[in-house]
């Protein structure tokens, strides 16, 4: 009886015991990975994965291209708001603070996300290029000079845009702020390493020419008239219609200004009425943003000519720029933007409106289009300035015209804030996280020259109420309160002569 009971019992215990041992062996044994429940696989590329990439430089380069596109879009959106070019309608960017340059604080740079923030995206572009150039390339035997030249170009562009638009920024972890002048020098250093190769940027653009165009821009910003002129001349000699425009991707990184110009229910980017005819330059998700173009080279050469006292040469360059702008493509666009301001009052939206650039100035026609409606918009460049205007102007008036042409031809290309001399502070997050950057240090306050009017006056025009409740136009005369181009011509002079560089 006892045996009868104990035997099967023993068998059961042996069975369960062996099964458990087997199970545990399977679970934790080295050779039984298929039973190991602890193994997890990160579906993203980890650092360990990255180190196994056969051609890491080639793999990272598309990342730099994409980040350049992100940074460019973000810089355009925010800096254009800060200028007289656009005012903010609605709250999509956390309020209207960018219309009030003197009120901009580091915390306002935090309001922009990793997708819309100019500071954030420029630093990420710089950091990604640093990683590629300093850490990845030295260990990648297959990296080509063309790839490295392209990487230097993007880092140079990051430094250039940081140097044009910020007072001072750190450029490494725990770094002290580097002033704008030194950022521009770093830009020149990188851009020079992009010269002389046969490398092409996406869309087949010559990297060499794009780098030379950027060098002209960087030298202008530093006040180096001769090299600025020289690089501009080289670009024009190689390709009189040179254009590098950064394309976008409808399904991932789209044209950032397009969202605020066209796509969003509240079209937050509302242009200064006298620039209405240029808007919206980017009519779809993939619209390219011009990065470098021959018109700008001509305008830089005009500026250097004026600095050298040669008004005739300057006029010729300006007329060439006007003619080139007029030859650039345009598109028909059904614009549904009802042109509303923050109080939901219509802004100028009728072609019968005439505009004075400031009180007392003559009224000009043809600057405002009928909206909502079908409009013809320039895709690269356009200007309201005529050859006759150019021929008729001299002295300060000619400088004013040059600023106006730069404003119109380089509209929505993030050049205006630099021309106005306004520079942004770093993000509050940078101040909060960097032990060597404290509130009050260089770079932590917005820089606004004294000639910039108070509050948001650059964006204002009169009268505010233009239409009655039925939508009928009450007056067709609109006067912009301040002609910032006249102010710049009178108070700043030429950028190449008065670069307003902190740290220089």
């Amino acid at each position: 009886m006892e045996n009868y009971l104990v035997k099967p019992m023993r068998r059961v215990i042996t069975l369960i015991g062996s099964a458990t041992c087997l199970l545990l062996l399977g679970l934790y044994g080295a050779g039984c990975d298929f039973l190991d429940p602890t193994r997890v696989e990160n579906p993203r590329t980890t650092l360990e994965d990255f180190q196994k990439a056969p051609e890491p430089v080639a793999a990272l380069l598309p990342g730099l291209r994409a980040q350049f596109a992100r940074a460019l879009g973000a810089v355009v959106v925010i800096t254009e708001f800060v200028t007289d070019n656009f005012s903010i309608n609605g709250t999509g960017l956390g309020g209207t603070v960018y219309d009030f340059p003197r009120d901009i604080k580091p915390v306002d740079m935090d309001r922009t996300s990793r997708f819309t923030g100019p500071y954030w995206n420029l630093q990420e572009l710089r950091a990604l290029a640093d990683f590629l150039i300093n850490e990845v390339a030295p260990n990648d035997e297959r990296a080509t000079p063309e790839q490295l030249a392209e990487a230097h170009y993007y880092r140079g562009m990051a430094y250039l845009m940081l140097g044009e638009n910020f007072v001072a920024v750190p450029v490494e972890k725990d770094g002290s702020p580097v002033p704008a002048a030194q950022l521009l020098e770093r830009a020149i250093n990188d851009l020079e390493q992009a010269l002389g190769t046969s490398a092409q940027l996406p869309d087949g653009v010559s990297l060499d020419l794009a780098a030379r165009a950027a060098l002209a821009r960087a030298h202008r910003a530093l006040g180096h008239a001769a090299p600025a002129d020289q690089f501009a001349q080289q670009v024009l000699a190689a390709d009189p219609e040179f254009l590098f425009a950064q394309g976008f991707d409808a399904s991932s990184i789209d044209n950032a200004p397009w969202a605020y110009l066209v796509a969003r229910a509240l079209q937050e980017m509302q242009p200064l009425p006298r620039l209405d005819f240029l808007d919206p330059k980017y009519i779809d998700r993939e619209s390219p943003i011009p990065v470098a173009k021959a018109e700008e080279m001509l305008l830089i050469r005009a500026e250097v000519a004026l600095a050298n006292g040669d008004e005739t040469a300057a006029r010729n360059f300006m007329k060439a720029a006007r003619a080139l702008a007029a030859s650039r493509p345009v598109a028909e666009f059904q614009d549904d933007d009802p042109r509303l301001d923050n109080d939901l009052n219509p802004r100028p939206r009728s072609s019968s409106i005439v505009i004075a650039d400031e009180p007392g100035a003559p009224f000009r026609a043809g600057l405002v289009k009928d909206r909502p409606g079908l409009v013809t918009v320039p895709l690269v460049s356009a200007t309201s300035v005529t050859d006759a205007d150019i021929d008729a102007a001299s002295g300060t008036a000619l400088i004013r015209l040059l600023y106006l042409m730069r404003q119109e031809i380089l509209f929505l290309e993030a050049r205006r804030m630099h021309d106005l001399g306004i520079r942004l502070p770093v993000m509050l997050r940078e101040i909060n996280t960097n032990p060597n950057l404290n509130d009050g240090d260089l770079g932590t306050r917005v820089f606004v020259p004294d000639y910039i009017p108070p509050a948001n006056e650059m964006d204002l025009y009169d009268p505010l109420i233009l239409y009655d409740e039925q939508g009928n136009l009450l007056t067709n005369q609109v006067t912009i309160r301040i002609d910032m181009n006249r102010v710049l011509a009178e108070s700043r002079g030429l950028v190449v002569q008065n670069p307003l560089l902190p740290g220089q």
Partner: protein
Amino acid sequence: MRRALLFLAGCLFLATASRAQNATLQGRVLDARTGEPLPGANVVIPALTRGAATDVDGLYRIEDLPAGTYEVVARFIGYREGRIVVTLQPGATVTQDFALEEDLLQLDEVVVTGQGTSIARRKLATDVAVLTAREIEEAPVLSVDQLLQGRVAGATIRLQSAQPGQAALIDFRGITSVIGSQTPVIYIDGIRVDTELGTSFSLGGELTSALAELITSDIERIEITRGGAASTLYGSDAASGVIQIFTKRGQAGRSTVTIRTELGFDQPETRFLKDTGFSFPQTREDPNDPNYGKTRFIRDNFLKNGFYQNYYVGFSGGSPTFTYNVSGRLQNDTGVQPENENTLYALRANLQAQLRPELEVSFSGSYIRSQFQRLFNGQSIYDPLTTFEVGDALFFSGAETFEEALRIFLLPDVDEGVHRFTAGSTIRFTPSPLFSNKLTVGVDMRANEQRVFLPIEFEPVSGNRGELSRYNRDFSVVTLEYVGTINYPQMGPVTSTFTFGVQGFREDESIITATGTTFALPGTKDLDEAATVTAEETRTQIFNGGIFFQEQLSFFDRLFLEAGLRLDGNSAFGKDVGLQTYPKIGLSYNLHDEPFWRESIGRYISVLKLRAAYGETGKFPSPYARDVTFQATPFRGESAPRFDNPGNPELKPERTATLEAGFDALLFQNRLSLNATFYRARTSDALLYVPEQPVTGKGTQLRNVGVIENVGVELAAEIYVFNRRDLQWSIGLTYHGFRNRMVDMGGAPPFAIFEPWQRVEEGHPVGEWYVTVPIDTNGDGLPDDSEFQFIGKTPYPTKTGSISTSLSLFDNRLQFYALADWATGSLVADYGSAWASFNGIERTVFPTRYDLEGNEIGKFRYREAFIALLKNGDYLKIRELSLRYSLPRTLLRNLPVQRASVTFSVRNVYTFAKQDLVDPELAGWAAPGDLQLGGVQSITLSPPRQFRFAVQVTL
């Protein structure tokens, strides 16, 4: 170990084999008060590890017993143990009946959650809440979260809205973490199940949930631990608490067939709707307008009564060695707004086989198929309810009449289907009364697909020529648990139970979303016919495993000391982080069992148990947050990498240390029972997304830098007004109040959980409202500007409670139950009024704004005076009324029916609120993956009034 096992087994068999002539013990187990038989009660002879369960007539029979004198114990859930010493003569059949007293404090009730093994509540140092079948089987609920509403002290349960497929936000004991969901872990028959809150596109703020289709029938009992020492043995996963659901087992004896038919209707709750969208002048004032006079359009044309039907068939029974409980259910609910139909099929089986006296194998499994339709909601302009209530439906749809606008708004199809398969097996091996083993292996697999189709005809609203999106989520979790228990032989007044075990789970989740836009022709719902198709994928895997030990010492069977430890490893921990240890220690003292007590205070306080415990629990970080990663996005035909996660090799779980103390008492000759627990839970190493320096090009990294504290009290009381055989009436009360504070953020900057308005900042409650408030800057007493301010209130209630009453008449044949729950302390954002003001409708009055000279310059906009949108969130809701009549046995005598009952019930009867613009009990918008605090709503569908009539017959 094997030798010890064999030795123990040998002892047992030597003991049981030394018998000569067998005796039989039989009898009935009855309710001492009503005399009703208690089916399913257990009668055991502990010394012999023999026992039997009673059948439907309360009869039990244990055969083949060796002669001798034994203590026989009868146990039944909800009753105090009955112990009688019986002497069995060789060959005799002894009849011994038991009359069990109701266990008003349920101290003899055995719980397993958080203890590793079964332990009577009287021995526990913590409070484990238990809901028994009797409390929940008639509840007219659609999901488990609704079942907990008002029934568990310390639980805050807020539905997002009344659309199908959704579940509630559940918080136990405050907010212990600022990352991820606060939903407790749920086990069904020992199998960990999916509780993910966001399993779909949001479509305006509301998400479908894996809780929605969890079982609500066949539940035997639910045990709830609310974190702290009671949850410690669950380790890195238990800071939000643990819920264990046990399903019904079959009972040996006659087979039964239970048929239940439930029909009913749902009546929409309209008190928070104003139909203000139609206050546009043209709809009100012009009699020639086609929409003239339609001032109740939502109530008259949009909402409707829903029809509900639920059919259940269950088969139950078995022999002494094999029992089964198998059931099928079919439920359909048409919903109270259009396109809200929900159909659910469920099959369940619960099987037990007693292979040998010492070896039991059980299986529990279910398959659920749920299909439902939804509407866009909340923040979406495709949401008909919000658009008609506070928007301009004619403008958005381009239609002339409201009827036509509604037709257009109902064009989109949002369909979701869920397949869910849950199964597991438990082996119990008890070679001796001194040593028992339990091994559970189980899996829960859930696959759901949501398809959102915007047809070409919807173009006036959507602006595109057709769009189809699908959201596919595949989830599986595998559970493995082994528990061994050693009961040491009694040494004088001391007994000892040692429990040890291994427990682990692995979760695999895969989400694929795809969107196709622009279709040439109507009729197609194929993604690949769209002009452009984009797809995204997210996959996560996580493993958590640990071992645990617990020792429980009992002194004189009235003073109990427990100590336990869990050691945990997890695939989400950083590479430099080893096993995590979670200790617990607790003490409970049954003062009423002291001899001195009975003679003195015992007359007034018949039961008084004191308890205190300290325990730690964890919450593991998100999978892969420890790794340095790159993430590539497609860009112009290339795969473009960028920096992703900065990486943290020191990433470890959050750790919540809870100190709690309380008592359970029965006072005034069993007229009043009281449970009270005070707790202080401090979460250290709280996970926060800490920003990197932007100069590094990197975003944020999850780091263990925060400290969060919750301090609170949980109370439950039951007043037994009458407790006679023919009349019982009791009143129950629960209360939970807590204070929450973000003590330290370890240098991480303050951040917002929801827009800027729900903010996490040191020294403030997590998610305290931080909103724009009008201010006076020049001291003239008139507001001329506004600024962000903390306003001292949270979007979640800080005090919750319930009142219930239960009345039983005519020998328990007529039962009435009522439940109301309430909450206070929150403010809820009425975002519907924000939309309204945006559209020029004044639903909420915003304060007047003045310029610096004191002239009126209009009203503040809602963004400038968000405080005006915050409404009082206090409410009291009459949640349930039910009336049940059981037909007397005399009537059924000539029918092949054992029991029959009819039940009439109503749920969501009436809401008392201090405002009528926003339903304060709803959570509203949520965002997948993040901490959900609720408290922001557009126009949101309130839970309807549900009328149910059920007939249940047991054959």
